[in-house]
């Protein structure tokens, strides 16, 4: 129990970042934000699909950078419960996003021709 108690009291101070952490996080964020904007605004890549996947990749990396350097996520804080809550949330978010997009996409595809929202807006495509 004694180890549990010490962990309990130290946890309430929360995880701390150092000046170095904040500066690294900021530097990485600036780079990870600037590149996607540049890719889209400058029409750098030929394929729009590739650009889309690349900027989604940058967003994912930047979220991790923020989690580590700004939110100071680690496996130790509050005996791992912060990380457990985060992982649980990520699973729920993934189910919500993927499930909604998947179900609604198929609903649109299986609609009768001419009923989908796309049909009215731009018949040419």
């Amino acid at each position, binding site marked *: 129990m004694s180890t549990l108690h010490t962990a309990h009291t130290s946890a309430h101070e929360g995880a701390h970042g150092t000046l170095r952490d904040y500066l690294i996080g900021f530097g990485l964020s600036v780079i990870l934000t600037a590149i*996607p904007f540049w890719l*889209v605004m400058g029409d750098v890549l030929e394929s729009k699909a590739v650009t889309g996947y690349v900027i989604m990749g940058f967003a994912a990396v930047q979220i991790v950078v923020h989690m580590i350097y700004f939110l100071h996520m680690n496996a130790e804080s509050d005996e791992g419960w912060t990380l457990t*809550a985060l992982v649980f*949330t990520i699973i729920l978010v993934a189910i919500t*996003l993927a499930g909604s997009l998947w179900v609604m996409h198929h609903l649109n595809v299986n609609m009768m021709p001419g009923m989908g*929202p796309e049909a009215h807006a731009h018949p040419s495509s």
Partner: protein
Amino acid sequence: MDRAVTLPEFDTTVFYDPDEHEHAPGGSTLLGFWIYLMSDCLIFAVLFATYGVLGSSYAGGPRPSELFDLPLVALNTTMLLLSSITYGFAMLEARRRRVATTQFWLAVTGLFGAAFVGIELYEFVHLFHEGATPQTSAFLSAFYTLVATHGLHVTVGLIWLVVLMVQVGQRGIMPANQRRLACLSLFWHFLDVIWIGVFTFVYLLSTLR
């Protein structure tokens, strides 16, 4: 029935900590606040999913590539990112218990945050003048709901920030105020994380379509 009688005395096996051990005041506040943020994350997940589903239902109205002003969004993103690092500086000063510099960095954070909200409102007013209101199409309804919910969070964060500046000024940086600053720190950086999703999925990806 016989077996039940031969069981050992029940009180001897205790499955919980019988002693009332000490809890530091506010010891679980940060974890509780983190769990609140995770539930907030689910609100945004649902709004993102709604936008993902309805984002291409223009109903003959304007398309994202005609509406969105990416340099303005880039400026907005810069404001929020700068406010994140200045809040970090405020936290570092708060740990050294320097009231004046903590308040200074909180004020700088507040100014960047206010600039963010101001630019977002300017963008909305501009869109309204172009006739792109929430009633125009499902895409715009979903867009305003998601982006304005984030903007509302930032506004609440700004109010909280001002309250904390006053509290730090009146009572100094005692443990309770340090805990409050740490909670707002989580809230503020969390909003920046959500904004990464907004500028990537709402502004950049929609413009590509």
